[in-house]
């Protein structure tokens, strides 16, 4: 039984129709070029739009956690607050600092934005809504997203400012440490699903999401992934690189105007990327919730469009991340590195072996029940 009911609101119908119309009207070369340009424009538009939405959501949820009202002046419930902020940041002066390393200073935003947008392109947003789909998807996501740290280090070092320098150094140590845990946690799931391609990985979770499929081991990996993903985005209790009470703004202290805006943009999008990779790998991506034996329930779930499932799961993870952010006090740098190297990494390696044994002895849920 292949449950895949035709959903009228599915966006891949629209894209395939556009594809067919372009190929019918134009020679292949031009059709492909136009499609590539459209993909590029769509990626930029989604990227910028998501940042605007995320900043508003973050401010509003933060306000509720702190028993405040939050932005409520610009538009109904303050929904145009971030649009106003973006406009403001566009018309702010970009201040040129003396005694900086000019080339590296102006290159750093490129690294940060390009690294996050390349990862962003590899996310499967819904059925057929994925730009870059390499067969080494997971490895690609890990390697490309870690290029962002080069931008952070460049920004901190080239600013010639003590706050920036300390912030960048902390960020470097923190990012590389937690990158390791996130990588091995994702590897645990690669063992389970036997593929690194993100689209195939989502497809393999049609009947059972990976987090249920790998039960104990997948759950441990998921928790480790959430902790390390949270640390990678420099947020919450792990915001040492930009601890505002110690380092003013950390590595982007010297940036002003839109250059600062790029760092801010990338920070929010990285939160989204971490949440969406988590949702794709552990929570089934755009696949709806399926329970074995509940046929009518399963059919009903398939009538919800895939992108709504995806964004729902991502929203859940982002809410969780904000919850953590406003619930715990900031760690010290030695506590932070101890947590990674003395606890998460050994647990992670053992967990990987446990997952291999689970897979080889046929103890995963799909092996038992299907």
């Amino acid at each position: 039984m292949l449950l895949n009911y035709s959903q009228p609101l599915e966006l891949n119908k629209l894209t395939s129709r556009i594809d067919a119309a372009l190929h019918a009207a134009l020679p292949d070369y031009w059709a492909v070029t136009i499609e590539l340009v459209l993909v590029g424009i769509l990626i930029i538009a989604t990227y910028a739009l998501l940042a605007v939405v995320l900043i508003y959501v973050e401010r509003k949820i933060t306000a509720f956690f702190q028993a405040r009202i939050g932005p409520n002046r610009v538009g109904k419930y303050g929904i145009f607050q971030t649009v106003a902020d973006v406009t403001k940041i566009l018309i702010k002066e970009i201040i040129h600092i003396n005694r900086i390393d000019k080339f590296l200073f102006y290159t750093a935003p490129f690294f940060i934005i390009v690294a996050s947008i390349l990862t962003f392109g590899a996310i499967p947003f819904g059925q057929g809504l994925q730009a870059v789909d390499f067969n080494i998807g997971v490895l690609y996501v890990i390697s490309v997203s870690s290029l962002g740290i080069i931008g952070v280090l460049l920004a901190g070092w080239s600013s010639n400012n003590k706050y920036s320098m300390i912030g960048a150094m902390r960020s470097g140590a923190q990012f590389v440490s937690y990158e390791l845990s996130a990588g091995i946690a994702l590897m645990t799931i690669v063992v389970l699903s036997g593929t690194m391609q993100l689209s195939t990985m989502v497809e393999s979770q049609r009947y059972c999401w990976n987090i249920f499929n790998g039960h104990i081991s997948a759950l441990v990996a998921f928790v480790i992934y959430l902790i390390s993903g949270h640390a990678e985005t420099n947020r919450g209790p792990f915001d040492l690189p930009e601890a505002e009470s110690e380092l003013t703004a950390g590595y982007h202290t010297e940036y002003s105007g839109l250059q600062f805006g790029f760092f801010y943009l990338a920070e929010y999008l990285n939160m989204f990327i971490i949440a969406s990779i988590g949702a794709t790998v552990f929570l089934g991506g755009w696949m709806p919730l399926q329970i074995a034996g509940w046929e009518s329930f399963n059919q009903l779930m398939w009538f919800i469009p895939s992108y709504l499932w995806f964004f729902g799961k991502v929203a859940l993870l982002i809410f969780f991340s904000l919850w953590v952010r406003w619930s715990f006090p900031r760690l010290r740098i030695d506590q932070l590195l101890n947590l990674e190297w003395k606890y998460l990494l050994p647990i992670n390696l053992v967990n990987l072996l446990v997952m291999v044994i689970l897979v080889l002895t046929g103890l995963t849920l799909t092996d038992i029940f299907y």
Partner: protein
Amino acid sequence: MNNLSLFFTVFIAGITLVVAGLGMAILLSPKSFNLQKGEPYECGIPTHGTSWMQFKAGYYLYAILYLMFDVEAIFLFPWATIVRDLGFAGLTSILFFLIILALGLAYAWRKGVLQWK
């Protein structure tokens, strides 16, 4: 549309975003020159010396440790994808690899690399 062309499309989209944004900001933003404004941000007094100096070695030690485990990850990923086909033979052979790495971590731990001083 193959993946590589899409990859370069996304790459160019990223660069376009930054270039277009900066271009727009340069066109829209006011400009005024003031020597004081270009001073590095400090608590209020002029900054003392440069910050391009020797830095705490602790951070670099973690980077070296990271390098060890990151290269390991590259070797482990291909193994992880086909572990179902390899069976227990694959598990035992990778176990030695992991034990050597774990010994490396244990050595670093014993030597006090993981101790923040």
